[in-house]
């Protein structure tokens, strides 16, 4: 397996340029899907290779399940990373699995509680809750419950009728495109490899921009949509929930408004054939492909070695 097992642990770095450039240069839909897919591939490959290192690392532990032929000198030479790297990878993989598990559990719990909170309210596609605190969000459905938009009267009162249409269009876009799945994927990827965190931030921003563009398209007025987003952000900032909101990625809303006030983005991947964003996209794609190839290489090699070392 040699160096190949280490490559996927470093290759997530190739996603940084595209994470930075995609937001400005690509259509938000293209950018978000691209980033989520690249992140998922890179995360899966690096996790696989971490797992391979763990297999090698356990060779030092008493009672490991590896075959006896494992300690033959030629096998040891073929599988070099049993010392520091192998030992370190064991707690690393454990931490990775724990954080990913925690993310999934929290995702499910919040979803279930939100659905539960709405029981007793008439089952309409928009649930209006009498609350002065301004909030609005998309609540994905399950097999038993429909997907809904939840909005407080505090939010509705602050917006004019046309702006409300933009808000609903935005939330419907989230639901229609199942953005919650992309977000979960990006968060799990970021848990799997710290180098993928810029990608998560970019995906979080990307789904908002994507929904903004859909909303602007459906109400037919970019400026109106920009005003709805801006006004909603300003009242949310002064509202009683502002404390808990402050943690969220700063600077997102002004960038969204600015983008809406600019002309609509093109859906073509890039305009001139060779630009920085095209280069960044190719780099990320190449990184993901190299990561997939080298992790596959390492996995197959290790499987062959284990098979050869097993006395049957």
């Amino acid at each position: 397996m040699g160096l190949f097992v280490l490559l996927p642990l470093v290759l997530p770095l190739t996603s940084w340029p595209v994470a930075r450039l995609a937001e400005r240069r690509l259509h938000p839909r293209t950018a978000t899907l691209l980033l989520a897919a690249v992140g998922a591939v890179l995360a899966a490959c690096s996790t696989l290779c971490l797992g391979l290192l763990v297999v090698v690392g356990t060779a030092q532990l008493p009672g490991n399940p590896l075959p006896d032929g494992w300690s033959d000198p030629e096998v040891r030479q073929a599988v070099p990373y049993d010392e520091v790297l192998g030992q370190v990878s064991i707690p690393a993989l454990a931490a990775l699995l724990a954080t990913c598990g925690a993310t999934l559990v929290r995702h499910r719990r919040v979803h279930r509680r939100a659905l539960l909170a709405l029981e007793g309210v008439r089952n309409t596609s928009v649930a209006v809750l009498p609350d002065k605190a301004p909030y609005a969000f998309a609540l994905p459905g399950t097999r038993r419950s429909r997907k809904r938009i939840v909005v407080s009267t505090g939010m509705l009162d602050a917006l004019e009728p046309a702006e409300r249409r933009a808000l609903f269009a935005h939330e419907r876009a989230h639901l229609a495109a199942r953005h919650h799945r992309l977000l979960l994927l990006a968060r799990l990827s970021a848990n799997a490899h710290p180098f993928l965190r810029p990608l998560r931030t970019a995906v979080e921003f990307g789904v908002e921009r994507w929904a903004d563009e859909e909303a602007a398209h459906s109400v037919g007025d970019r400026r109106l949509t920009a005003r709805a987003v801006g006004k909603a952000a300003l009242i949310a900032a002064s509202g009683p929930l502002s404390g808990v909101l402050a943690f969220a990625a700063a600077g997102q809303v002004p960038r969204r408004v600015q983008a809406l006030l600019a002309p609509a983005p093109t859906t073509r991947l890039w305009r001139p054939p060779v630009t920085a964003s095209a280069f960044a996209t190719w780099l990320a794609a190449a990184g993901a492909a190299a990561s997939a190839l080298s992790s596959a290489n390492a996995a197959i090699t290790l499987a062959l070695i284990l098979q050869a070392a097993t006395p049957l």
Partner: protein
Amino acid sequence: MDRAGQQPGRRRGQGQLEAMVLTALHEADEPVTAAWVRDRMGGGLAYTTVITILSRLLAKGAVTRKKAGRAFVWTPSADAAGLAANRMRQLLDKENDRGTVLTRFVSGLTGEDEQLLRDLLTKSHDSSAADGAQEDGTGPETDGTRRKRD
């Protein structure tokens, strides 16, 4: 830690039953008896449990009751939405990572963001006001036309 972990679980159990009773009441088109509610919710619940839950909901103002013959009949009060709002608010306050599921319309703002945003909105408002002067009254559904008719 242990206590904190257990308490929400217990509350959730109660909240779930209350929500189920409320849903059953909503599905009825007229005031119904506790026995009807119990049948509607399916087996497993004792009559007294249903009465207890209904009384608890009554205390919270989520349901109202009136005498009909020898029994009470129950209707959901208009404030069921208010109860849901309370529950949702608790969830939003507590879950600082709610973004995982609840893709919110807007996220947080820093002081700097706020100023930038106000500037952007003022700018866009000025230019749209200039446009609006030419297109005034063309929209068939605007508030302005409705007001004129009134």
